[in-house]
């Protein structure tokens, strides 16, 4: 039997003294798309950050395994090299570093070989065209002065260029208009295949309208309280989280 891509067991995460996640379990296999839903402050972004290895959070108990390897204590760059990717809700601005130079260095770091310039540029521009990102942005400083939509598209550009095994998308649709959401969901669909997997964190239905979802998890009271199929999304969209409270068995 193949090992799951991601296996989170009994995860406890703190920020200082405050417990954000308590005993969370989650398994993601290759080829699957999972959606995490939950109210504001329920810990969705904390889960994403804990899987990526953010130093701002403290994993006080439990484990995170990736392809059978315990990565709970690994630094973020080592996780990225194994194939974990996080699309940030609020991507950092990196003054002085162009999108192109940053991505070329990142691809080199992840693959262990700096790509040849012209081949890399060709691929980068092709992906920028697909996402409707003006090629001028390749020579702009990363996220500096970008609109919310441009930042989100640049995150998806990084996803497509780095081609990780697991993509965690944290509010990839927040602040986007309807057309931009479609561009982002198209990008996500281009990434998706039978060998990789996605963990999509979202508040609303728009982003996943055009994406085939396998599992939906509701995060509440510091852990996953309900897991179901894609139909949960529309039920929550129609009636709020109260509409699915009756399904919670624990």
């Amino acid at each position, binding site marked *: 039997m193949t090992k799951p891509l991601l296996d989170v067991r009994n995860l406890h995460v703190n920020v200082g003294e405050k417990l954000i996640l308590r005993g969370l379990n989650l398994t993601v296999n290759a080829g699957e798309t999972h959606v995490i839903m939950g109210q504001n402050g329920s810990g969705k972004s904390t889960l994403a950050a804990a899987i990526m*290895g953010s*130093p*701002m959070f403290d994993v006080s108990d439990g484990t995170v395994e990736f392809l059978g390897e315990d990565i709970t204590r690994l630094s973020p*760059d080592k996780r*990225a090299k194994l194939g974990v990717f996080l699309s940030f809700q609020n991507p950092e601005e*990196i003054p002085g*570093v162009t999108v192109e130079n940053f991505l070329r*260095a990142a691809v080199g*770091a992840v693959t262990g070989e700096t790509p040849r310039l012209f081949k890399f540029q060709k691929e980068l521009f092709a992906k920028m065209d697909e996402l409707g990102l003006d090629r001028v942005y390749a020579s702009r400083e990363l996220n500096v002065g970008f609109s919310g939509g441009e930042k989100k598209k640049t995150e998806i550009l990084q996803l497509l260029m780095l081609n990780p095994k697991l993509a965690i998308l944290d509010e990839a649709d927040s602040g986007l208009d309807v057309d931009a959401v479609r561009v982002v969901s198209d990008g996500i669909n281009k990434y998706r295949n039978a060998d990789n997997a996605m963990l999509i964190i979202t508040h609303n239905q728009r982003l996943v309208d055009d994406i085939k979802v396998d599992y939906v998890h509701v995060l509440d009271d510091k852990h996953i309280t309900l897991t179901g199929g894609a139909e949960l999304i529309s039920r929550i969209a129609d009636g709020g989280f109260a509409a699915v409270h009756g399904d919670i068995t624990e």
Partner: protein
Amino acid sequence: MATTLRNINALAMPTWRRLGVNGAAIELELPTPEPINAPHPTLPSGIIRTHESVLRCAEFKSALSGELAAYIRVHANAGARIRSKRGEIVAEPVTSSYTLGADSPVVVDSNVIFAEAHSSVTLVLFYDSADDSAAFHAGMTRVIAENCADVHVVEVQTLNTATRHFTDFSAVIANGASVSLTRIELGASEVYAGSHMKLEGDKAESRAHTFYFGDGARKLDFNYVARHLGQHSVSTQDAAGALFGRCDKIFRGTIDFVRGASGSVGAESENTLLFSKSARNRSAPLILCGEENVEGSHAASVGKPDAAKLYYMQSRGLSEGDAKRMLTLAMMETALKALPDEDMREKVRAALAARITDNA
């Protein structure tokens, strides 16, 4: 015989001595330089050679040291002395490169720029080491910018860490003229750098932008002054850099609004990344107001690299060391834009990357 130079980079207005920022006193053997084989730079059309005598019509002040300035004047064994002709806008830079080492252990260069009215000129000065031997560099650039002239000076030094480096810049800036100085200081055991911008005319402008890299037990000592005399004159002083090891750095920035400099604006800012707990960083901003209707500002950011930025970069596969290297190189990019040639920029990037790698 060793000489003690007092008041190197002296603060324009001394403060409490216990702060240790008033100036430096150093023991120094001032060598008598031998002639060096430094060809006179190629001059583009619109630029002609000139003599020190053109400077007689202006009064210069050294922010580094009057004593050292006098030494450089007397003992210079190199230097570019150039004049841009009235109305000539010359984009092509004049470049002087010096390679210090066993064959050229002492370089003392005195540079002169006389920019006639409505002309534009760029001088690029490169100082590098051929080997690991101890050497000595002292240089001085004096600039006269006549009405509406535009002068750019870029100094880049990638000297080895056995070499002492002294550099002084002073400019007298007339009505509507603009002078910019960009310094990239990557090497040398000791760096003493001064700049004195005298904004004599109305609407005169000066910009001093510095990038520094410090590591080991090296010492970096800067003293920049913008003296506003003309009305509606504008000055900026920006410094950015990264400190590793036990490096000791001080940056003194003075904006001096003289009575009558009404409507003038001066701004200074500093951004220092500290990569080591043992590195010492001192900033001494000073704004002197002899005139009421002026605007002076100071901003400083000193600290460790932003943890959120490092995490973001690491999440893309870059190691912590790679991320720090990239952030430091990024800080230099603003200064590098002043270099007119991409090959030069690449050379400087490579020099810094190598020095950061040595400290990773």
